[in-house]
């Protein structure tokens, strides 16, 4: 699904590392040398197992990492460096140019304020010239936009009076209130059932078309990526190990981990349905105990002894606008 994307780079993350100082136990890198970029109007899907650092990447971009995290590298957004930026500058961006749709709609809304008040707050913190009634009518419009029926009465409801799907819609309304340049959707459909999931994605899609925002869609659902993103970045153990156009990554998969992920999907057209699903052997290592060399090598069926278990692989070009961090990928000529 291609939106009106241009070549202008909106967000560029370079060599991002997030390091945790632990009060007990060893310090560790939760994200290691991660790079990715998003053009204006583009949708980038980020997939990976739980614990691969997807949500942490979004927190790093928003500047909302926990206090014991140390971050290095560069995050450039609209030409502005976010790492080391002043809190007041970051606050200006948050919610206005850079919005996040939270993961768990059940807990992401404040239980003691009405939905309308919380949406209005997203607007009023960046523009305090609006009157109460103007804010309210903006909140009603936004609820209408995300497909909540009877928004005039619903606006005064508290979150506990909303269903799960409605809360997720309300969160979307809140994050798009100021028509941000980049929306980070952190597993926006995880807590929802499949039909509601499709509706929510549809809402996101419509809004993105309307506002020409870029979207960073974090998910572990490859199906959502296939239907929704222009490009995809696959994360493993705190790093992007493969990145490229959705078709290119899905059909000309370069990294053995991505191949394993795609291979473990159940398929309706499988020849032998009684066969058990493929699974990648072993578990993703904890970031505190990453193996030497390529962090995937203990689980990799084609790992080369003496190389994969000693050297951290560099990024190789697997095709036009398609890269993979694997020793076994042959560099292709860029065209």
């Amino acid at each position, binding site marked *: 699904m291609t939106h009106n994307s241009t070549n202008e780079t909106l967000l560029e993350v370079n060599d991002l590392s997030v390091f945790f100082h632990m009060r007990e136990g060893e310090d560790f890198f939760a994200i290691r040398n991660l790079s990715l970029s998003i053009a204006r109007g583009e949708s980038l899907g980020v997939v990976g197992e739980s614990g691969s650092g997807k949500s942490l990447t979004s927190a790093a971009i*928003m500047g*909302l990492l926990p206090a014991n995290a140390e971050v290095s590298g560069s995050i450039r957004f609209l030409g502005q460096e976010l790492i080391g930026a002043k*809190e007041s500058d970051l*606050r*200006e*961006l*948050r*919610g*206005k140019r850079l*919005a*996040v749709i*939270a*993961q*768990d709609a059940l*807990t*992401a*809304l*404040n*239980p*003691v*304020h009405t939905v309308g008040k*919380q949406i209005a*707050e*997203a607007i009023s*913190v*960046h523009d305090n010239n609006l009157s109460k009634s103007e804010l309210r009518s903006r909140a009603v419009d936004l609820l209408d936009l995300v497909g909540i029926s009877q928004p005039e009465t619903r606006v005064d409801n*508290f979150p*506990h009076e909303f269903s799960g799907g409605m809360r997720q819609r309300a*969160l979307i309304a*809140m*994050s798009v209130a100021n028509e941000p340049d980049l929306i980070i959707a952190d597993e926006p459909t995880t807590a929802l059932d499949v039909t509601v999931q499709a509706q929510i994605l549809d809402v996101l899609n419509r809004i993105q078309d309307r506002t020409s925002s870029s979207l960073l869609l974090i998910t572990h659902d490859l199906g959502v990526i296939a239907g929704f993103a222009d490009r995809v970045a696959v994360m493993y153990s705190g790093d992007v190990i493969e990145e490229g156009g959705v078709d290119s990554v899905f059909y000309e998969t370069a990294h053995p981990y991505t191949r394993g992920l795609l291979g473990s999907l159940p398929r309706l057209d499988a020849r032998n349905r009684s066969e058990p699903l493929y699974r990648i052997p072993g578990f993703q290592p904890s970031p505190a105990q990453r193996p030497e060399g390529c962090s995937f090598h203990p689980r990799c069926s084609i790992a080369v002894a003496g190389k994969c278990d000693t050297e951290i692989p560099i990024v190789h070009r697997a095709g036009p606008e398609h890269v993979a961090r694997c020793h076994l990928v042959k560099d292709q000529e860029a065209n």
Partner: protein
Amino acid sequence: MFAYAFRRLIYSLPVLVIGSFLLFWSVRTAFDPLAKLRQIRDPEVIIRETQRLGLDQGILVQYWRWLSGFVTGDWGVSSRTSGSVKPMIQSALTVTLELLVWGLLFAFIVAVVLGVWSAVRQYSFSDYALTGISYLGLALPAFWFGLILIQFLAVWPQQLFGWDEPLFFFVGLTSAGEEPTFIDTARHMVLPVLTLTVGLVATWSRFTRASMLDALSSDYVRTARAKGVPRRRVVVSHALRNSWGPLVTVVSIDAALLVGGLLVTEQVFSIPGMGRLFLDSLLAGDAFVLLPWMLITGIAVIVLNLVADIAYGLLDPRVRL
């Protein structure tokens, strides 16, 4: 809300009736109202008084006579002072409530400020310092801390500056023989209120800190920050606004307990409040004062519980009353 409060008050009537009967029964079995007369060893007098007071009737009849007396305002006569019980309890209750309202208010404000401060700066030096000070506050016995306050804030400054009278008084709540003025009352209040506050602040600020930490690490606080809401406002309007629950519980329980006894504080500062009245009556075996005293404190517990429940409803829209 009003319907709920009304319903709750109606529901609490049986509790009061049963509670007051148990009170009456236990006090009636434990105390002999004629103990003093028995020293005279005149059986005539004993019999006459037994009949006059209705002590030969069944316990239910006696209870009923006592309860209807209580409800209609006839609380009987103290065996200790021979004075009417009602004005005794009224004046003691007024004094205690005055002390209590200021103490609770002051302790509440200080506890919330310190608790929020501590939570926002978790694991910082000031957090550790405040934690240490609260344990100290918990460990200070009121009788000792009250005396320390008297020495440090009243006696020594007076000697040091050669004043005619101390800045803060430490006997009673009014100066004897003078019309009570606001300034005069305030000068009497400072030290007992401080004594009362220390222990309360120590516990309450811990509760505030704990529930603030919960709230600050919640998803909705993250959402608020992601919207670009300034830190201060996130703390007050999102985190603190969600943290009142445990504090309401502990404040209402403490307040209910204190209605009956600031025993130590009142003793140290010679304040004629409910605690002292209880102690004096108990030592003198004055059942006529003890009974209504206990009923009043029981009512206070019920009312404060009701207030706490209404507060939950006002503070959290998920609580339906």
